[in-house]
């Protein structure tokens, strides 16, 4: 059997919140447990979609870097041109972070040097990025 990790986490969270928590006597434990249950739900979503969300970010950032090539140093270009070493979450995160650091610099450069269209495209990316990563499992 190949376990569906996200579904398993959601079921465990449901069991925690509906069957185990009601038996707790302390209000503190009840509140803490409920928060943990909500977080497990958010982690379930991240387990299912997290890598794809980051890959979508990476693809979009790479398009922005092509548009802003004139503002990138050769060292930056080495990073932006690098390929993902694996699809493990840690590697995807590291690559995503490295590109985001360059995006921050590029964003600042676009402001300082009047690259209006590039600046707008970075803002638009940030909007899509936050929408993509919006946590819906927690009210």
């Amino acid at each position, binding site marked *: 059997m190949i376990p569906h990790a996200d579904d398993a986490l959601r079921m465990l969270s449901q069991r925690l919140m509906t069957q185990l928590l009601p038996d707790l006597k*302390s*209000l*503190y434990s009840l*509140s*803490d447990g409920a*928060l*943990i249950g*909500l*977080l497990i739900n*958010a982690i379930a979503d991240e387990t299912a979609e997290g890598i794809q969300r980051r890959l979508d970010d990476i693809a979009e950032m790479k398009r922005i870097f092509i548009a802003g090539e004139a503002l990138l140093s050769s060292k930056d270009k080495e990073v932006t041109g690098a390929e993902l070493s694996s699809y493990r979450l840690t590697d995807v*995160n590291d690559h*995503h*972070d490295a590109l*985001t*650091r360059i*995006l*921050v610099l590029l*964003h*600042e450069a676009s*402001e300082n040097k009047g690259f209006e269209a590039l*600046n*707008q495209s*970075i*803002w638009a990316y*940030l*909007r899509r990025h*936050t929408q993509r*990563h*919006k*946590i819906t499992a*927690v009210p």
Partner: protein
Amino acid sequence: MIKAGETGLITTDQVQIAAAEYLGEKWGTSVTVCNVEKIFGGASRETYKLSLEVDGETRGVILRRDPPSSLIDTERHLEYGAYDRIYPTDIPVPEPLFLENSPDFLEQPFSIMAAVENPMSDVAQLSNDQKQKIGQQKYDLLGRLAAKDPLALKFDEIMTVPKVVSTAAEQLAYWQGIINEDEIHPQPIAQAAIRWLAANLPPPAQKISIVHGDYRTGNFLFNDQAQITAILDWEMCHLGDPLEDLAWSLDPLWSGEELALAGRLIPHGQAIQIWCEASGLSCNEQALKWWRIFVSVKAVAIWISSSENFENGEGKDAILAMAGWVMTDRQNRILLDYLAPEVLS
């Protein structure tokens, strides 16, 4: 002396024993701790409600113990000092009783305050009339706090007095430093906000005021008559521009789905008007906009800091993870709404 477990946490039984010994020594009489209840949500300190019997009478106290890690890296003497100085004024706060800096009793420093009777803090179930009544008091009290002279209340003995011309820039530098130090992942939205704030500093503060630092719905108590009975959580108290507290209280994060209502209570315009009348200060639109963006950056810094604590193992409370992840997510979307080019142009 109480020994905490490997996690640095103690049990309510340990608090019961240590508190009875400590308070008995302080008051010079026998103190029985009848009940200890840990209160959820005190992310910056472990918070316990104790029911006591002292000389045949029952009373309640709140004990706040420094945890190994917290949401806000604050110094307890500043928080206690703020309670101590505000308590004699017309701003309601719990009576501060003892500040214990020694780890001899509970392995961490702690403070003890009188408990407020029949406390309520959740505004969700209130009627519209009750919300109106509490909202008016909330902003009247904040205005009155802003009007106070921090030097007359001797706040200069416990905290730095900034200059009106530089307080905004100093606050920005401080919280920028926290983000740069604690961020686990790069923060492109917060960094864009910081650049905007640095390039658009507000006019000098109208005065240097006592800034509560976390003035929001949830950080005050009220009774069943819809009367605010205590303003809590002064751990981020500092001196600075009074618009900071007003801006923090208006942040959409505290409004839930009711974005038109300040802290889910009264409309923003009404809140600002009450604040102006009570403080005798004006509310420059551009300056308030600067402080509203600033407080969102400050919030991101706090959420990031809690996330860092959770990730590095200093703290394992679920609320640290919740703040570091879920609230950073929400705060980033708030910042985007402020910073989108069509809004700023």
